[in-house]
């Protein structure tokens, strides 16, 4: 029987990706000073599981890296080597390399072999360094043999000519140690540590010979005083050849009845001990985060479904909602006395349809954690690069948002978080001087508020600099005044090409971005607000609709046509007096609403249709607000408010200027949804 292994690849890739994400999460959470043994076990297990899968499916490069990783993790978890921040960095780097390798196999993406080689060396060096630490302690012989043992166990994939040397220096001035470290570093991968008597020990992983090492060292010190030992792991064959070892075995060849009895007795005895052991394990287990247990259960009780299937389902339910609305409308004028049964049934249908729609929409909902989970690592790496200390906190990661929106919010959020780290939070010394804690606090919070989800990026950094923004705005030729309220000043940073950063770093502040952030969020039907106080920090507040598939709309009539205006934009509607309408040369028509002049758009002109009323004082004017700008739209009449299922016009017809989509009304007619932001933009 031959089994095509490639059919399991996709499952392996998905699983490995999940394990890597889990590993990263655990690594970012781990307390380096006193790691929780359970966390270390869990981190070890991620590497172990990936290795198992990779080996089974023949992804040797992944197996090799995970093998080195697993060995080191195993020793850390057994307490042979203490966990250091350096380990965490290396493990995170290894995660990136593994991700790259997996993508290489999965999509044929390019793989940086050098990075793979480097991470293997780095992990091996850490392993060897751990050995040096152990060797330097009083229990030298024991530790050394443990090292040898650990190494023997490694069926490592190191090229045979790569050697590990432990180089013990005599007492040497620090300047010379540094010079040696950089010279030797050219030969391969080098790590250093101090012995108890303050002498330096290098571990060098290199393909060069001892002679080369001695030659380099003799520039600086007396070669005779050097102690160089080869501590290269004993390399076993990668896997024992199949002919020699079948790879399996049985403790009892074939169990006879008597043997079975014996086994049973022994097992019964073992079970008694086991019961005690398990009891304590279970108690410990119970204390664990309930999430983790739930995650295990979720794995066995969830299925993967393609997003197309879900969307098809949502679309069908959308159609059902419309059909249901039609039925409701048709029976509206029936005599309740004569058709009581029918009316009751339709009432029930309405409720069921509504519930069904909600349930189906929830399938597309994903927790914000999907986005939030990528930030701890990013913030950590950036903070490290910039020399800042940052406590990163997320709140409301379980808040759910439509999948379509969640994917589109990633980029804007990334930008805002980068900005906070780069420009918001100050360097530790600056913070100390300002009387703040050295570590800045960056909070990412999500919550539901009404029909919206609100996502806030807050930092306790320097805050926005009003004067600098105003100065820059003047420089950019924007119209500003010194007595503008703060909110208006903050909005200036969303202008295209606006950046006040003094130095353009490689992280953010190239002057592209904030305008794009704003545009992306507006395109999702959302808004961004800024709150900031000099010296106390800033908060960027993004508000988004929960889903793009259903919209609260106001239906309006122009001529014979019914249009939908998103309710979120509607501020009020009114019937204007003739005296309130003005025509200003060069600025078009204006309407005066409570001492404020607003531009007035004639919808029938925009869409070139014959209106019932040509004069606004006969019809209705709707005041709209988008991004703090207001405008009035003149229509014939208001029809009513309703929830509509948004249908994409582009995929069903083509893009039409001024129209953002379409919907089917209760009576079966098609109604277009007015693109209010585009209309406002057309005013300039």
């Amino acid at each position, binding site marked *: *029987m*031959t*089994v095509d*292994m490639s*059919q*399991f690849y996709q*499952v*392996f890739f*998905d*699983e490995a990706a999940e394990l890597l994400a889990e590993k990263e999460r655990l690594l970012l959470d781990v307390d380096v000073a006193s790691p929780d043994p359970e966390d270390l076990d*869990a981190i*070890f*297990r991620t590497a*172990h*599981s990936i*290795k*198992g*899968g990779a*080996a*089974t*499916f023949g992804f040797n490069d992944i197996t090799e890296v995970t093998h080195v990783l697993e060995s080191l993790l195993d020793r850390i978890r057994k307490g042979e080597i203490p966990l250091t921040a350096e380990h965490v960095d290396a493990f995170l780097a290894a995660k990136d390399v593994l991700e790259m390798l997996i993508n290489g196999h999965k999509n044929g993406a390019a793989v940086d072999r050098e990075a793979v080689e480097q991470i293997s060396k780095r992990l091996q060096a850490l392993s060897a360094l751990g050995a040096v630490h152990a060797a330097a302690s009083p229990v030298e012989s024991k530790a050394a043999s443990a090292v040898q043992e650990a190494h023997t*166990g490694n069926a490592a994939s190191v090229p045979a000519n790569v050697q590990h040397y432990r180089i013990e220096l005599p007492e040497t001035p620090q300047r010379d140690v540094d010079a040696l470290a950089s010279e030797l570093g050219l030969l391969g991968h080098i790590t250093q540590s101090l012995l108890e008597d303050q002498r330096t020990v290098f571990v060098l992983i290199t393909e060069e010979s001892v002679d080369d090492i001695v030659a380099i060292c003799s520039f600086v010190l007396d070669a005779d005083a050097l102690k160089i030992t080869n501590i290269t792991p004993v390399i076993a064959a990668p896997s024992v050849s199949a002919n020699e070892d*079948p*790879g*399996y*075995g*049985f*403790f*009892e060849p074939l*169990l006879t009845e008597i043997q*079975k009895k014996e*086994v*049973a007795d*022994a*097992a*019964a005895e*073992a*079970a*008694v*001990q*086991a*019961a005690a*052991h*398990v009891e304590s*394990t279970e108690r410990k*287990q119970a204390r664990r985060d309930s999430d*983790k*247990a739930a995650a*295990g259960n979720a*794995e*066995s009780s969830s299925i993967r479904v393609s997003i197309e299937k879900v969307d098809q389902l949502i679309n069908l339910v959308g159609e059902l909602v419309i059909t249901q609305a039609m039925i409701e409308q048709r029976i509206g004028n029936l005599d309740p006395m004569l058709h009581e049964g029918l009316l009751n049934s339709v009432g029930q249908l309405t409720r069921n349809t509504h519930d069904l729609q909600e349930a189906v929409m929830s399938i597309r909902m994903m927790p914000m954690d999907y986005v939030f989970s990528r930030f701890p690592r990013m913030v950590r790496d950036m903070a490290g690069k910039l020399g800042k200390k940052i406590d990163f906190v997320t709140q409301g990661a379980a808040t759910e948002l439509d999948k379509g929106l969640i994917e589109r919010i990633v980029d804007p959020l990334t930008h805002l978080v980068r900005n906070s780290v780069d420009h918001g939070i100050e360097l530790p010394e600056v913070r100390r001087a300002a009387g703040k804690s050295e570590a800045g606090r960056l909070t990412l919070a999500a919550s539901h508020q009404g029909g919206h989800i609100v996502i806030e990026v807050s930092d306790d950094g320097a805050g926005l600099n009003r004067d600098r923004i105003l100065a820059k705005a003047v420089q950019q030729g924007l119209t500003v005044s010194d007595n503008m309220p703060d909110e208006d000043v903050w909005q200036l940073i969303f202008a295209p090409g606006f950046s006040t950063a003094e130095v353009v770093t490689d992280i953010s502040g190239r002057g592209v971005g904030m305008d794009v952030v704003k545009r992306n969020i507006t395109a999702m039907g959302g808004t961004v607000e800024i709150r900031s106080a000099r010296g106390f920090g800033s908060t960027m507040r993004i508000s988004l609709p929960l889903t793009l598939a259903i919209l609260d709309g106001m239906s309006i009539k122009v001529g014979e046509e019914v249009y939908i205006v998103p309710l979120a934009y509607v501020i009020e509607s009114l019937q204007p007096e003739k005296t309130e309408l003005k025509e200003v040369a060069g600025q078009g028509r204006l309407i005066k609403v409570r001492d404020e002049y607003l531009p007035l758009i004639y919808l029938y002109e925009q869409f070139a249709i014959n209106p019932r009323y040509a004069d606004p004082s006969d019809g209705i004017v709707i005041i709209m607000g988008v991004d703090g700008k207001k405008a009035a739209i003149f229509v014939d009449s208001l029809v009513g408010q309703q929830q509509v299922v948004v249908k994409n016009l582009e995929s069903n017809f083509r893009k039409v200027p001024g129209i953002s989509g379409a919907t089917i009304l209760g009576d079966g007619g098609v109604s277009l949804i007015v693109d209010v932001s585009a209309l406002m933009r057309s005013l300039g």
Partner: protein
Amino acid sequence: MAKTILAVDDSGSLRQMVSFSLKAAGYDVTEAVDGQDGLNKAKQHTYDLVLTDQNMPRMDGLTLIKMLRGMANYQHVPILMLTTESSDEMKSQGRAAGANGWLVKPFDPQRLTEVVKKVIG
């Protein structure tokens, strides 16, 4: 009637591979995602063979084996460990817990089927 096998492994891909190969060989395979899940499933049905990974969250393979051997109906059911470690220490631990044998990972479907055939025919 087809022989029933309980396959316990926290790795979904491994589980699928084991399950697919053994089903292809005519066995009736039930999957469990970790020791605890395996134990729960073993309580509902007495399988003809249990295959278990060692390193799993919630409950590891050795503990599962000990628990199973503590159950009256699992006294004589063959249990094999699927493990990446084939050290003597691992083997003696497995033996003490009550395993009947071991199979070293990685293995291919052919070898797995061959071993299972040897045990339960």
